[in-house]
């Protein structure tokens, strides 16, 4: 019995001292992981002032074109793009979670309202006309069916069957943040190739959506990325 008491006293002492010891302890895995990325899962669709956005768009047009269609293939088309997607990108450029030597600087002076307005403006522009993509090509099969053997999900699941944005379905289950998924149709092959590469290398990260794309991009080989980019460019 006395040994039991001694043992319990040791337990008491250890317990009382533990908080002090642990006060200097490093954070656990939970703390380190929390906040490492922006959670877009509860992001609601944004609204903005199209006219105000138009007034702010002069600088943007230099690269993305006066009607939101890029002047060079290394820039993305913005016309018809999801407003929420555009807003989130501007925010992450500004916060540094997404890095680009041009865009980081361009967004530094933008207010939250500016970003909403610009996003709304470009979303309201007519998208680039549809092309004639070959659904039977390797890129088409990847986009429409994925490749289960490689663990590649079909792109159309989030980006829509024609790449024009997600096809929202009714459900009682928790819904994905559809408005944060971008329109891909008609983006240049050079741009898509670069972005998939950035996802795969981890250069583009920082949001829950980017974490999804990271694992998708890692499942794609170089040839698959080329094929997919070509297919999207012709959509």
């Amino acid at each position, binding site marked *: 019995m006395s040994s039991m008491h001694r043992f*319990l006293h040791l*337990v008491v002492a*250890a317990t009382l001292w*533990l908080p002090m010891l642990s006060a200097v302890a490093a*954070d*656990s895995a939970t703390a380190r*992981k929390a906040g490492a990325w922006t959670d877009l*899962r509860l992001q609601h669709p944004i609204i903005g002032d199209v006219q105000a956005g138009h007034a702010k768009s002069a600088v943007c047009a230099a690269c993305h074109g006066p009607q939101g269609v890029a002047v060079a293939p290394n820039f993305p088309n913005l016309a018809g793009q999801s407003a929420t997607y555009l807003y989130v990108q501007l925010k992450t450029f500004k916060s540094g979670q997404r890095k680009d030597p041009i865009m980081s600087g361009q967004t530094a002076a933008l207010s939250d309202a500016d970003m909403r307005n610009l996003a709304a403006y470009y979303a309201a522009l007519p998208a680039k006309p549809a092309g004639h993509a070959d659904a039977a090509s390797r890129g088409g099969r990847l986009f429409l069916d994925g490749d289960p053997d490689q663990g590649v999900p079909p792109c159309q699941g989030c980006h829509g069957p024609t790449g024009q944005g997600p096809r929202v379905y009714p459900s*009682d289950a928790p819904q994905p943040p559809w408005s944060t998924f971008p329109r891909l149709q008609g983006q240049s092959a050079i741009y898509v190739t670069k972005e998939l590469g950035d996802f795969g290398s981890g250069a583009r990260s920082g949001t*829950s959506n980017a974490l999804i794309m990271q694992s998708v991009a890692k499942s794609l080989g170089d040839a698959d990325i080329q094929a997919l980019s070509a297919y999207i460019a012709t959509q």
Partner: protein
Amino acid sequence: MLKRKPLTALLGLALGLVGPLPLLAQTDASDSQRVGNLQFGNSLDPTGWGAFTMPDPAGMSYLHAGQLRTPSGMLYPWPHQIPDEATLGTVDWTYAGLVQLGYLHTSGDRNDEFLRMYSGWKDGAALGMLAFSALNHRTGQYVDFRGSRISSQDQYYRLRTGRYGTYHVEAFYRDIPHALSTTAYPLWNGVGSTDLTLPNGLATGSTLAQVQAVEANRPRRTLSVTRRSEGVSWEGALSRNWIGYAGVTNENRTGERDWGGPMYLSYFFVAPGPGGPGTPSIPGTSGGQYDTVRPVDFTTTDVNLGLRNKGGASGWLFNFTMTGSFFRDHKSTLDYAVPFAVAPGSTSAITGGTWSLEPDNNYYNVRLEASHPLKLWRGEFSVSAAYSSMRQNEALQAPLSPMYCPSGQFLGTTGIACADWNTTAALSRQGGDARIDSGLLNLRLDFRPTAKLSWHVNLRQRDENNMTRYTMYNPLTGQYGYVPENGAEPIATGGQSGLFQPGSPLYQSNFAQISNIPFSYNDRKTELGGSYRIDRNNTLSASYLLDHQTPHPRERTYINDQHVKLGWDTRAFGNATLRLSYEYQKRTGGPYNPDPYLAAYSPSRPGYVLPANGYTAFTVAQMYKYDLSNLEASKLKAILTVPLGTTATFTATLYGNRHRYGAHIGRQSSDTTGADVSWDWEPTAATSMSVYAGTESSRLRQGNVNDNEALTFSSPDQANMQFGGPFFPYANFWTATDNERDANAGAHFNHVFSPRVRLDLNYDYTWSRGLNSYDYASLAAISTVYRSILTAADVGNSFPANIYRMQTLTANLNLALTRRLGLGLYGKYEFGNYADWHYAGFGIPADLIVGNRVFTELGPQPHWHVLLVGAFVTLKL
């Protein structure tokens, strides 16, 4: 100790905390080993994953916030965090590991049977968890090891390695204890061996007082069996679509357990016992019953080999499996000496008995399963066929032991010579040569002609053929049958030998079993069923099953069991899901023959001479065995699942079944009614809580009739099998009702207070009450040997109730001191009470000797309190 030190108990409970750092993620949830163990855990951590279950705030998916629900409306649990990994050698390999070492201490009633039933608790150091995993992210190769050790009887270790998509190898070792009694005082020496001998001071013919005096000083011991198992299995992709698998598992069960020891009846009470009227006397004048202890020393080796196709060779998917299971009993006999003489003053040679324990057994099975899609109505055809054979051919044992019935001696004055029965020369053959073969063929068609409608038809034929034939014939004497009760019955009765011999005036009219009864059957099941989705919220289903069985030799040549099932799944009540099912069963069959086994008994043999009064009725003609009697049954079950917001769920289940058997003699009815409710709440990854409660009551009612013992052997009426006749009069009718009520409840709470502190609290309550009551037409229903000493008031209407109640409070506190170092505190407080009238009157070891009966265990403690505390240091590797 605990009762005297409540403060100690409370302190220990408050501190009974625990938990390791979260490290390794659960990786094998959907995996299964082809042979052997599926679940690795122990009493310290029943899940086996407690050290790794830190919920991941990232939730289930990056695609959506919140937890999804299952199709029936339950919330999926929060996923566990993926462990931190470190680089191992090359950049391709990463690893994670955890070791958790600590100390366990038990106080209070540490030897209580229920505490130790499946736990090897031991004061001292314990290995809470040793885990290591490594993964090559480039090649998909992995290694995973996990182990835990409470004591040498309670431990497990598992190693898994392989390459994802290519092969998987698994090996394991584990010990699981099973305590059967912690209050055993075996009278014999040699417990655990095949030879139980009497302790010094006792010999056959001892008096009650002498045996009690020796028993009073026998040491207490625990009777337990330890299951030690080890195995290895492999599964690999032979090509793109072909997968092979193989496994071998070996399980050894060693220890000892309560067993019997017949030496013929010793219940001829003639006067009230020491407890007064209504209690049996303990004269100990003949026979004897012995609660012996037998050894357990078994090995079962399972071998599994298979091949399956997952890619659809010519449209077919199939799986082919060969299985072998080999049981070996390394101690196949048990001899036991007896302290009491079979008959007082007798010069009988019988001084003990012998058992033939389980024979070695080989089991083989081949099975083929295949399926093929059909173009018609998006259908599928599937077939499975199997054939198995079970065989035993161990050397048979002599009917009597030469040690306790030595050559040269005779069984009392019966003239039966021990020498004629104590060697295997007394057997008609030397080996068992037993074999049961069975075949199975199942054909099924599934169709889905529209998105709303699906239906199926299933045909299943299973035949079992018992090919064992053994005739009990002693070539030394020319007699059929065997000497029962180790030779005690012929001595005690002065004549009932259980032997039959044509042409012998002494044995030619004996009713004796002379051969085995090879029970076999054929079973054909035909089922037609389907479901129809009325709309988005309602689905109806229905099926009809005809189960046609032709057992033989049995009381009926055939039975037809018909089942109609109806189901309704609906979400018409808001977000709630209600699943309602009803089943009606009706069984009919051919004419009932109450004695279809005559071919196995002496009256069927040439040379049998019917006694002047015939032979005693085998049983009452109206006795219907429950598996073959007419039956009407209905079952109803309702499951309601109500989502409460996005973080909680309420579930209620109500079920009941009613069985009405077409019998007055035999099982008459059985009913069960139960209900469960639960509430689960997962507001965040950091907190989860659940509360549950359930209750069930069941009632089993059966009837029987006491035979008119005054007519046995003395009147031709003894052969009359009719209920209401002279041998089974209505006045001798009685019924027995078994009422059981159970309840359970509990609450579980888990919370992560901060990244460094995690607390798990669990409370569980279990209660059951069993009452055996009875009714009877008159006191003639009571056996004549008791009737003289009992009145109706003595008999009453029930036995005392059996009660079992247990409450358990478990707490774990997990403290992370640094990223690598943690402290876990564990506490478990268990208390309960137990009452079973079978053990009534057993207070001290001497109480275990009652008349010519020797019992071994006092039974579980009526009340127990146990506190278990542990402290563990967790180091992340």
